[in-house]
């Protein structure tokens, strides 16, 4: 099986033109277990970066370390530097809550709040004490931006649970952009959705790329090929010190390069379906 990057976008520069977020020797531990080892990579502003690799290689773990969601997991610990515009997110003085206001997250399974569609969008702005001149306008703009307005404008006061899975996931994306983050992290956002809902979310991602930086974990290689400007391939290796398996970054490049001319044999095996 060969996959061709569809967005053979010649404009993607060799290196991210503007590095918004950078990982330097990032290691993530769960207790004594090192789930991710020595990741170095830089995410480009207004680019979509895909993290791919076999299950259990630490993609979600690394993603959560980018907005300090790992802090919520008991025993999880991150070492190394993760810098947003050069500022280390793990600095002692940094408040993880402030980090998450700038770097939002969309989860694998749509997780709208058990509230109305309107309140799902308004929740973030209210909690952050944002004072929009009109909350109604903010909700409308946000839902329009997330390509959901036309579908929900007549039932804003109804429970978000009445929406389809794909609509719920777009609502979760809308909820995230309502608080104006710089970066949106997405952990397999389409894995619970059908192909049509998936393609709508992919369209949305391409549009949001104008204003946001997106990092997406996906187990679906075609999806990475379709939407990502850059792709990072991870795999799990034997940890030299402990003997446990641990996630490492194998290759990180423009998506076209990863899918058409990978430099590492392991990448080639994975994308051609010979592994994982």
């Amino acid at each position, binding site marked *: 099986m060969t996959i061709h990057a569809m967005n053979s976008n010649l404009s993607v520069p060799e290196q991210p033109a503007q590095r918004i977020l950078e990982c330097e020797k990032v290691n993530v531990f769960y207790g004594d277990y090192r789930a991710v080892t020595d990741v170095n990579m830089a995410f480009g502003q207004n680019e979509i970066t895909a993290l791919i690799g076999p299950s259990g290689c630490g993609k979600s773990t690394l993603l959560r370390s980018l*907005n300090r*969601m790992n802090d*919520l997991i*008991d025993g999880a610990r991150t070492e190394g530097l993760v810098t947003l515009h050069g500022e280390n997110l793990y600095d002692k003085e940094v408040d993880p*809550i*402030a980090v*998450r*206001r700038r770097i*939002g*997250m969309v*989860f694998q*399974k749509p*997780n*709208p*709040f*058990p*509230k109305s569609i309107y309140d799902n969008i308004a*929740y*973030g702005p*209210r*909690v*952050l004490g944002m004072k929009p001149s009109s909350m109604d306008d903010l909700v409308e703009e946000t839902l329009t931006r997330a390509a959901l307005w036309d579908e929900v404008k007549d039932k804003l006061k109804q*429970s978000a*649970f009445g929406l389809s899975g794909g609509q719920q996931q777009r609502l*979760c994306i809308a*909820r*995230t952009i309502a*608080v104006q983050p710089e970066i949106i992290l997405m952990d397999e956002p389409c894995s619970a959705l059908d192909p049509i809902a998936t393609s709508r979310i992919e369209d949305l991602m391409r549009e949001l790329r104008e204003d946001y930086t997106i990092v997406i974990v996906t187990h679906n290689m075609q999806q990475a090929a379709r939407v990502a400007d850059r792709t990072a391939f991870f795999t799990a290796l034997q940890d030299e010190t402990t003997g446990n398996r641990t996630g490492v970054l194998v290759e990180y490049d423009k998506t076209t390069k990863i899918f058409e001319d990978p430099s590492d044999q392991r990448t080639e095996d994975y994308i051609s379906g010979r592994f994982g």
Partner: protein
Amino acid sequence: MSTLAPSRGSASGSTRGTGSLKTKISKPGERVVLIVLRLAAALTVVITIGIIVALLLPSIQFFAEVPIFEFLFGTRWAPRFADASFGVIPLVTATAWTTGIALLVAIPLGLGAAIFLSEYAHPNLRKTLKPILELLAGIPTVVFGLFALQFVQAVVFKQWLNLDTGAFSVLAAGVVMGVMIVPTIASISEDAMSAVPQSMRQGSAALGANRMQTTVKVVFPAALSGILAAIVLGISRGVGETMIVAMAAGGQAQIVTNPLDQGQTMTGFIANAALGDSRVGSIEYNTLFAVGLLLFVITLIINYISIRVVRKFREAY
């Protein structure tokens, strides 16, 4: 023969796909179990109906002698006096005071404990504290009654705080009843909050909400129907609680206007009067059942309202 094979079908595998779907697969043992379960369910219904009838019959006799309006709205309760009067309002106010005071104590403490256990406590701490809390719910109410009478009223209110009060007060009974209800409210609310999926908290945290915001604005509303159910159970226990009020609230039926006064609740009256030797069919005897019926109806109304309220506020996940 495989247990999956229809009992009347062929044992050979060659008939796969040809056996009738209408073939009965259930075993005889299952029918016995089913009959026993049906009997148990029927018995529960019969017993409930029996209780209602037992309450109703003497009450009907009571209302033949005392007009229902006089009973419900009369302000003097003196069933054993020569010029007997049967206005139940004094008993109802005393019940309202003790229950209200109990809720004032139990709701903040119970919900605070539930929020701490569910949202803030380390899982190990929760594992230790929750059973202790539930153990508290098992303390016999007579022990609480003793505590209310001999410690809260006699020592705390009269000696330490020097309050102007007698040997009994609805305040002492209410406060201790509140303490008694705390574990119930805390435990059920904690269950409801813990049942809110972790993904809700993650979604909130990812938007930059802090833990208190997540608790108050996401977890609490999502668990609200369970929390309201806990409070309603607390109210029901308060209205029906007998031992504490019989021991500590006092025995004088009067309209209570000051919580430091004594007062007799509905349950307190029944507990006291039932100990006397009322002849079956006498007015004293029938009075007991009329008050019992009123208690029953009040509890029903509370449950009915709460079901409506819970439906209205439901944020299902």
